[in-house]
């Protein structure tokens, strides 16, 4: 089911993940968040941008611990934990934040 962003159409899979990561632009995240009734703040964008950078380097989303550690380093130790990330992305950082960032869905026993 494609989503409409600024008049452009983006192909997504049946679970709402972007079909092609290279198509991504920031508007995609905003539209997806809006559908979830979520307002994206700077804190959300920090996570989304980190996910995209990490993916660029490693071709996979970061492990939760890699992510929390990076967040802790950048934004203070009290924020370097899953509770903080789930506060931002209630459906789970790995799945919801990855979807907004245009990354494929992490698969497996997670």
């Amino acid at each position, binding site marked *: 089911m494609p989503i409409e962003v600024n008049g452009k159409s983006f192909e997504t899979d049946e679970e709402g993940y972007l079909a092609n990561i290279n198509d991504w632009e920031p508007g995609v995240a905003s539209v997806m968040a809006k559908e979830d009734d979520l307002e994206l703040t700077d804190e959300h964008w920090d996570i989304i941008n980190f996910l995209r950078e990490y993916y660029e380097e490693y071709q996979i989303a*970061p492990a939760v611990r890699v992510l929390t550690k990076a967040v802790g380093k950048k934004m203070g130790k009290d924020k370097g934990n899953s509770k903080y990330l789930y506060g931002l992305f209630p459906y789970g950082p790995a799945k919801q934040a990855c979807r907004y960032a245009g990354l494929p869905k992490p698969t497996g026993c997670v």
Partner: protein
Amino acid sequence: MAKADFQVPKLKQYAEIPPVAPGAMAHSAPFKSKPEFQATLGFPGELAPDWQRQALDKMGDLLGRYRSLRVYLDSCVKCGSCTDKCHYYLGTHDPKNMPVGRQDLMRKVYRRYFTLAGRLFPKLVGAEDFTEEVLADWYSYFHQCSQCRRCSVFCPYGIDTAEISMAAREIMDHIGVGQKYCNEIIGKVYKIGNNLGLPGPALADTLEGLEEDVFDDTGVEVKYPLDQEGAEILLVTPSADFFAEPHVDGLIGYGKVFHEAGVSWTLSSYASEAANFGMFIGSYENMRRVAQRIREAAIKLKVKRIVFGECGHAWRVAYSFLNTLAGPWDFLDQRYPIPQHICEFTYDLMQQGKLRFDKSQNDDKVLTYHDSCNVARASRMGDRPGGQFDIPRAIIRATCNHFYDMDEETIRDRTFCCGGGGGLLTDDLMELRVKGAQPRVEALNNLMQEKGVTHMAAICAICKSQFTKVLPYYGMDMDQIVSVHQLVSNAIILTGQDEEDTPDAGTTEADYADEAA
């Protein structure tokens, strides 16, 4: 937590057998596999016009290959013993989720085409044509079985619905009707080496981070080696252990145990997955192909032993089938179990008095233990019957001061599935997962009320992820589920550790010599 667009079951003090609600879960079906995922596994991409013929040929092939399948289909006497034993029936009330109801979906087709009475008088013996409607029912309800085998414990004939579900999925895969979740994942194992698709460099980066964390916490340089040729032990663990919480806390624990044991060990980027979804889809060929990777890695890295991390069905495949799938293992050290479970490894060291624990490090928790279905009912640990129940509990008791078991009807070989096993741990089956978790969560909830239990430990990646997701639907916290080796990790006193905050409360073998008796 996501908002539920279905009714979350209410937890009760006593388990209730619900009245049947026919068709209550007829709408539930996972996403279908795309042709490209099918092709990787050697299956057709979509349904062909002569699909019925192909399906019956495959069923005939399986009936010939597995005598058990024919016996299971022939021997049911409709005694009703299984009807209230499946967590999916108890949680969804759909009679096709009664084990006998599920078996009958295949049994009626079997009778129609493979028995004389069914060929001549189908109506009299409950035989039915294999129509598209029946196929749709198969796809829906054979993906509402987590292959946990609880029903088989209560069946007087020992009919194993798990094997029937596996056969059904194998038949469906052979006519191009595969499940996206399982088949995409198996493809990733072939391409990258694990279910998650974590490439080597990402693994290395993650493990390096763990080394830093453990050093910061303890002041001890515990290593998490990758692809180290000549190491004694190859650790094969579910890739969720690298990626998710609380899984990774278990992985940290394994590393600390290996460190204290003074053995060299390594992970493999090529065989960076313990899970073997080939079993879930009933495909011997794919199960073998996944298992072969472990053999190839063991040979390449010249290891002497293989140890499996906390993964339920992986341990079933490893314990029960590894030798036929990927043996002979004559190049490994024959003095140790081949393969060995990490719990056996840790327990063995405990008995030798080689591990010191400070139990008070887990005093913020009151523990219970969830027996994972594949470990409980399809494998064993140690050298005594019931070791798969006793050894993990002995480890918990050695590392925690407060432990209680749940209702005995719901533990050990009668344990309830977490609700997400058997290839069902996917978001498109969330209603089924939440409802199927009800019996287990009910037993947990009762223990929380009666004994003040705060946490439940498990040794299966699927169980851990499933509870993380479903506990919040029941008003509980996602972090109430923990890894057994997370408890070990918290309590273990490493040699040379900064001990200023660690009282001299180490325990030795004398304290738990009888624990597992």
